[in-house]
């Protein structure tokens, strides 16, 4: 057997080829541990019935995961009706893992509810399905029709990808976060630089990253075109998994596994980064950005809406008031996070500073509801995409991506800054 990378081992296992292993570019047929979808499940269900006929059944009611999050609560009757279609489908098909709007963003709810053990394949009808690599799984994004097909037949084809190794060494300086690290990685690898590839994270810094921070990194591997972004299972993963009854072995890549590229990054000297409009790889150190005033500051999303993100923002905003020209929107990534942040006084601090708290969901990240920006406006956001029009207006003057700390500091100043007031 040729040396196997993490993705090769995971795909070999999922396709019943554990003994012989798989080779790069080989086509394998894989049945997922879970297949994720969200508000797009209404459209997927229509395609599903086209495939299976009006009385057709899903292949396994315990493998399909649906969480409503992309337009929650629905801003109009059309999007509300979309949810009605999904609820009916869930009931008719007996789908076990359905999470009502307000539970949280799919990528937050899936692992938090114990659906992501290590070493499995998670397919998802959402490009940020790569997030689940944080847990040692292969989170692989697919489209709607393909999801309908997996619902019907329980498997799909995948090409075994080539892998990229990223080695992170050193300790993050004060004021520099996981988001800054991944933005710097994206700058170096570029928006297309990991297309069709799987990324693996190694190095002394990785051992110090929390599960939340790993999720930020894996999430944003999607913005380099990656098929997956995986952290090997370590003590931090094991500790997280104690709350679930998972049975698993720690798998590691073979020593002779092949990588097409290795990127080494010393994080000790890193400074806060910002992705300028309208591409995620348009990244510069913040000090190189001229004075940029903002209208909206967004903290939340599947990239950076977790408890540690809210806490970092609250520590910056404590006993202060945001700039009068800025609207600060806060979308906790899940109900559990919102509850915990409420108990810890984080929500009180954010509201007292002038923040508007949203229902746990995607919020204005995709521009469908809940705080879209107006034409001519600028936003700083802890989300994952700064594409033109992404937050609802094709005449926006720019979306800037940064860590929750930078977003909070900028909300206070009224312009983009990583300096404390």
């Amino acid at each position, binding site marked *: 057997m040729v040396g196997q990378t993490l993705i090769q081992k995971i795909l070999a296992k999922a396709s019943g080829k554990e003994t012989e292993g798989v080779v790069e570019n080989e*086509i394998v047929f894989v049945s997922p541990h879970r297949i994720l979808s969200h*508000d*797009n499940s*209404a*459209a997927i269900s229509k*395609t599903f019935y*086209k*495939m*299976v006929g009006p009385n057709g059944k899903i292949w396994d009611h315990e493998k399909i995961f649906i969480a409503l999050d*992309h*337009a929650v609560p629905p801003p109009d009757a*059309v*999007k509300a*009706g*979309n949810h009605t*279609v999904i609820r009916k489908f869930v009931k008719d098909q007996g789908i076990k893992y359905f999470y009502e709007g307000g539970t949280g963003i799919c990528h937050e709810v899936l692992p938090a509810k114990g659906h992501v053990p290590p070493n499995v394949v998670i397919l998802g*009808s*959402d*490009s940020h399905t790569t997030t689940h690599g944080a847990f040692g799984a292969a989170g692989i*994004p*697919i*489209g*709607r*029709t*393909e999801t*309908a*097909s997996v619902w*019907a*037949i329980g498997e799909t*084809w995948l*090409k075994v990808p080539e892998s990229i190794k990223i080695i992170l060494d050193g300790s993050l300086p004060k004021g520099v976060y996981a988001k800054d690290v991944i933005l710097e990685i994206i700058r170096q690898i570029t*928006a*297309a630089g990991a*297309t*069709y590839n799987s990324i693996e994270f190694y190095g002394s810094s990785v051992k110090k990253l929390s599960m939340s921070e790993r999720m930020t990194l894996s999430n944003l591997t999607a*913005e380099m*075109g990656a*098929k997956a972004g995986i952290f090997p299972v370590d003590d931090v993963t094991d500790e997280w998994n104690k709350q679930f009854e998972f049975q698993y072995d720690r798998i590691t890549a073979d020593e002779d596994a092949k990588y097409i590229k290795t990127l080494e990054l010393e994080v000790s000297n890193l400074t806060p980064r910002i992705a300028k409009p309208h*591409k995620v*790889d348009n990244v510069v150190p913040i000090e190189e950005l001229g004075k940029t005033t903002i209208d909206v500051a967004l903290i939340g999303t599947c990239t950076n809406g977790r408890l540690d993100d809210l806490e970092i923002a609250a520590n910056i905003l404590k006993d202060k008031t945001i700039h009068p020209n800025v609207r600060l929107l806060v979308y906790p990534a899940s109900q559990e996070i919102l509850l915990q942040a409420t108990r810890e006084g984080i929500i009180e601090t954010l509201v007292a500073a002038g923040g508007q708290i949203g229902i746990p969901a995607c919020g204005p990240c*995709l*521009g*469908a509801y809940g705080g*879209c920006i107006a034409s001519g406006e600028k936003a700083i956001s802890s989300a994952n*995409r700064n*594409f*033109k*029009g*992404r937050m*609802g207006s*094709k005449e926006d003057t720019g979306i800037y991506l940064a860590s929750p700390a930078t977003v909070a500091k900028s909300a206070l100043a009224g312009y983009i800054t990583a300096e404390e007031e």
Partner: protein
Amino acid sequence: MRFKSQKIWIFPEDDINTDVIFPGRYTYEPLSPDEMTRHALEDYDSKFIEEVEDGDIIVAGSNFGAGSSREQAVTCLQAAGISCIIAKSFARIYFRNAINQALPLVISPECSDFVTKNKENLLSSKEKIDVDFDNGVIKIKDKVFSFPKLDDQALQIFKAGGLVEYTKTRLKKST
């Protein structure tokens, strides 16, 4: 399968993303393919919706279709009449979505470069592009470019007319 383009749309920029091809603000509205067409490339080139015709071909740069997994970014162009997209490269999910909808995508950096360099000339002479998808050959004027054919599995789905038909057939076989 062979096409001759009506018009050529030239978008040489790299990383044209699915948000500008089909904006997120419409993604959770149940729209028919024809309704999707009205928003095709809305945030990128407003002329496109008005002037696109059946059989037009898009020639793009690298990483076309980056970003979101939304399939409407394929469907809206296909329903608008686009018969084929030629690019230096495609984003992974976009490529899969296109196979699943049986929209032919052609990877040819050389053709993309040639068309981009000769943009004015090709547009003013209303030049057409001839794509022989089965044999992996593109012809423009006296230029000939070859491109890689689809992998066998992808080709099977494509030839079935897309994944809906492919899965239907597979289900029939298994019963």
